[in-house]
């Protein structure tokens, strides 16, 4: 199947530009911080004794959560900007070409590949259709959901008259019923994101080993490398 001993004639493709790679890793780090601190905001660490003024444990946990939250927000705004300013692949996770027949065909092929039925996957420069679909639904929209609900919860603390309250809490809290349900949904959002992260990491490792292109080294160096020299048969 894979003729790995043949000479590679295909050149590597520069796919992830530097700003995008920096965003990816800052965002990944911020999400880890958010999940850990967020978890302990809902299920705090064991109580400490002594005087209250000696400690600020919950305070620091919340502070880190809010800082990381703003990092994600600013990063995401930049990422949207980069979707327009970056190379053509930068738009991939935001816009799924559902109106294109080839996209559905290749999605189906990728599903067969993951069901271990197809013999080999197609060769891609950017993301394959299944990756795009997963990132679009389980990352982009979940992140938007977490940003909006997160700002609404943050606005509860900053209070009426602040932009967080007036533009987010004011309409999002009634939308979810009340603050308690909003907290619950924000937490469910966190778990969906954790599920995405697990899938994302597993698939990245698997694709790196089993697909026809490099994955993990690409998000570090930006270059997509190939294991065979047959022509690119996947779109994008």
């Amino acid at each position: 199947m894979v003729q790995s001993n043949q000479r590679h004639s295909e050149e590597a493709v520069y796919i992830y530009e530097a700003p995008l790679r920096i965003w990816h890793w800052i965002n990944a780090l911020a999400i880890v911080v958010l999940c850990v601190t967020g978890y302990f905001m809902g299920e705090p660490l064991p109580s400490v004794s002594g005087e209250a003024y000696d400690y600020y444990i919950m305070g620091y946990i919340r502070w880190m959560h809010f800082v990381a939250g703003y990092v994600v927000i600013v990063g995401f705004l930049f990422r949207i900007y980069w979707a327009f300013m970056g190379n053509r692949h930068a738009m991939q996770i935001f816009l799924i070409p559902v109106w294109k027949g080839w996209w559905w065909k290749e999605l189906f092929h990728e599903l067969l590949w993951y069901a271990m039925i197809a013999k080999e996957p197609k060769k891609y420069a950017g993301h394959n259709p299944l990756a795009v679909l997963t990132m679009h639904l389980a990352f982009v929209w979940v992140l938007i959901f977490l940003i909006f609900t997160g700002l609404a919860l943050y606005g509860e603390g900053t209070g009426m008259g602040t932009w967080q309250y007036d533009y987010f809490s004011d309409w999002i809290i009634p939308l979810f019923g009340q603050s308690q349900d909003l907290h619950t949904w924000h937490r469910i959002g966190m778990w969906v994101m954790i599920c995405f992260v697990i899938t994302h990491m597993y698939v990245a490792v698997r694709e790196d080993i089993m697909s026809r292109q490099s994955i993990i080294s690409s998000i570090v160096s930006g270059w997509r490398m190939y294991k065979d020299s047959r022509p690119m048969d996947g779109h994008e």
Partner: protein
Amino acid sequence: MHETFYDVMRRQGITRRSFLKYCSLAAAALGLGPSFVPKIAHAMETKPRIPVLWLHGLECTCCSESFLRSAHPLAKDVILSMISLDYDDTIMAAAGHQAEAIIEETIEKYDGNYILAVEGNAPLNEDGMYCIIGGKPFVEQLRHAASHAKAIVSWGSCASWGCVQAARPNPTRATPTHMVPGIADKPIIKVPGCPPISEVMTAVITYMLTFEKMPELDRQGRPKMFYSQRIHDKCYRRPHFDAGQFVESFDDEGARKGYCLYKVGCKGPTTYNACSTVRWNGGLSFPIQAGHPCIGCSEDGFWDKGSFYERQTNVKGFGIEASADRIGATSAAIVGGAAAVHAAASVVKHMTSKGNQE
């Protein structure tokens, strides 16, 4: 014509001299010039007291009980001097047909000018037969009185959100005032709480009387001056929360030291009310001060949010009840497990295809 403020003051033994002094003082306090003194006096002499109809639907009368305990202003001053409480079956002298007749009389006499105070809510199932007032379903009385009112005050969580009788599965289909089908399109002020704080109730009335307008409301229809902050924001135990000092169980050292009740289910961080500032019983105390977590009684649907003693509340659906963490951790475990199984299968496939090649 109803009695004016002046009439009431005179009746209570206040001389005209004292009355005029009061008007001067009021003008000075409001920063108005001496020319306003006669204007204020004129208004007090001619402005009738606001007629109020206080109806009771499905409720427990805890709102009335709370109201009667108001200290600033005293409930008696509100009822006897500030408003004209024409009907309130709990505290009025009249009873039976006599009492019911007053409702019609007020509606006719002050059409479009009285305030309708609603305590409790209307059950809609069985054509409203679960709550009968004077031989008729309460919902009919409510619709009728609402259509002629100037404004509606929804007292308590029952009238505002539904409260306990609207908790799952809500067998009588108890429905809060603003959601009753066919209710007249009148401004509705929600004053939620089970019961609301007495001073909050009298203050809402006083505000409307003094300024002749509704207090500023938030998007959900609650007066901003009492419901714009959470219990948590002004809680005196907040420093313990920030420090990370929690009551782990009700008999531990933390409970004795007055640590934060977050871990034993306090809903202070999600409850909009004035308990931690105004407090109860004339500012004496409030639940958290007494060592019990806030149960979030002024929030929509608080009965359906699982245990009062757990921080995370249950999500219903899929035929089970579980907290967000249980649902999330289970999902993550399933995804992780699926990934592991898939990985194992991939390894097998990778090996066999390699084997075929060689």
